[in-house]
């Protein structure tokens, strides 16, 4: 029994022998006597990028320049959860690419499939002929046509008399590769991995649009919302470069949880008070969340360590802590961890110190607890 690995239900039984050494995130370094490394949080030990919730518009802007080459799909609902864990494996799976590169002339079926999979007019789609990411020009052209498709259709509806104007505009869009004036930034934002680590990207500001390069100046059409939005952000970032750099510079780090075993059935979470202090949260709140999430109980011992019933690994606690931070620490609006949690009328409110937003957060509910262990122990009736 003493040789039994730490508890991890996801493991296969035959891995038993080397489980401790492989699955323990810090590997051999996870010696509890040794102080844990100072900063982990933003990348896990496996080298996976991690970020703290959904990206904000600023970060999207800063990213859009760098990551235009990889339009990727992203489940919106997974965003705050998965983004936190920075699941690189997920990212790989996400892209669906037809297998035949570049022979779209032969059979048209793969193209069709790709088009069906892609969101209709939402942005650049992965068709078979723009798989080649090195050939950016070609890709932009073809994808741009698609992106502008609904715009063109819309304009045709507005007036047939403008047919000529829209034609010239179409030509403009196809030929002009330089300033990227229309909504292509935002199209890419829709497509690209929202859970990307915003901190990993260099904070290069999008090219500020000079007055006079806007596409609507050359035609008599109206500007679209997307264009104006891009223009707004471009000028905003041109005027305040600190918006991007401060967001990309700042990094929220927390020491990894130190977990060791007490006896056979209990785990000790040693640095819970340190972590709570770092997050500016009451230890009671964090502990309550931990217990509710993990479906267990425990207590705080004399040295301020948390004794948890059941066997838990550092990795598992880390996961729960990450979720806690998404839910109760990071601001949903600006993603700053600089928030305060206050209780008013039995409801917790989280106020952001940096952007001033204020929202209520869910109360911690432990939910159904199944009967585990001997029934004779809790004879309630």
């Amino acid at each position, binding site marked *: 029994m003493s040789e039994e690995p730490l508890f991890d239900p996801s493991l296969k039984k035959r891995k038993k022998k080397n489980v401790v050494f492989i699955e323990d995130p810090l590997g051999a370094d996870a010696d509890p006597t040794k102080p844990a490394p100072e900063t982990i949080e933003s990348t896990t030990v496996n080298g996976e990028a991690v970020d703290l919730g959904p990206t904000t518009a600023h970060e999207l802007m800063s990213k859009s320049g760098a990551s235009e080459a990889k339009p990727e799909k992203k489940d919106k609902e997974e965003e705050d959860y998965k983004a936190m864990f920075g699941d690189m494996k997920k990212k790989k799976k996400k892209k669906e690419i037809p297998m035949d590169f570049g022979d779209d002339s032969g059979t048209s079926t793969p193209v069709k499939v790709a088009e069906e999979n892609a969101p209709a007019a939402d942005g650049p789609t992965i068709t078979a002929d723009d798989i080649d990411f090195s050939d950016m020009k070609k890709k932009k052209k073809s994808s741009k046509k698609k992106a502008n498709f609904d715009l063109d259709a819309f304009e045709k509806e507005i007036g047939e008399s403008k047919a000529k104007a829209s034609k010239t505009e179409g030509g403009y869009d196809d030929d002009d590769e330089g300033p990227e004036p229309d909504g292509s930034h935002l199209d890419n934002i829709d497509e690209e991995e929202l859970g990307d680590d915003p901190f990993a990207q260099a904070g290069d500001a999008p090219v500020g649009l000079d007055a006079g390069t806007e596409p609507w100046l050359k035609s008599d059409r109206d500007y679209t919302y997307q264009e104006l939005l891009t223009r707004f952000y471009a000028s905003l970032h041109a005027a305040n470069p600190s918006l991007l750099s401060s967001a990309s510079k700042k990094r929220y780090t927390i020491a990894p949880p130190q977990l060791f075993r007490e006896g056979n059935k209990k785990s000790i979470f040693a640095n819970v008070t340190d972590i709570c202090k770092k997050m500016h949260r009451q230890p009671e709140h964090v502990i309550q969340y931990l217990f509710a999430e993990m479906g267990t109980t425990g207590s705080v011992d004399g040295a301020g360590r948390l004794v948890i019933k059941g066997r838990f690994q550092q990795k598992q606690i880390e996961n729960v802590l990450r979720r806690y931070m998404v839910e109760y620490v990071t601001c949903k609006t600006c993603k700053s961890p600089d928030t305060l949690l206050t209780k008013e009328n039995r409801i917790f409110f989280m106020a952001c110190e940096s952007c001033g937003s204020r929202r209520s957060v869910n109360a911690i509910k432990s*939910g159904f607890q199944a009967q585990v262990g001997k029934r004779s122990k809790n004879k309630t009736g």
Partner: protein
Amino acid sequence: MSVQNLNSYDPFADEGDPLGDSADVGSTSEYIHIRIQQRNGRKTLTTLQGLPKQYDSKKLLKAFKKEFACNGTLVDDEKMGQVIQLQGDQRAKISAFLVENGLEKSTIKVHGF
């Protein structure tokens, strides 16, 4: 002519707690919670709570048991209602199963480590 005082409408009547109608205000009602609980050794239990009323939890349990090759029961909890309880860590499988069968992924909350 109407005398205001004789109106049957009582302005001071208790209109009740506006939030009192929905049993739990804390937005737990619309979520399906999938939790895990440790048993002894490396054994676990998975519980599924908050299934919408239109689904027959008995049939669902039967499908789960067949699909995941595990045992399970239906527990009637006085606070939480009917809870499906399965042996082993079936969280990922349950959520995949539910999504496959047309439930919204955003309504499913997977808890645990």
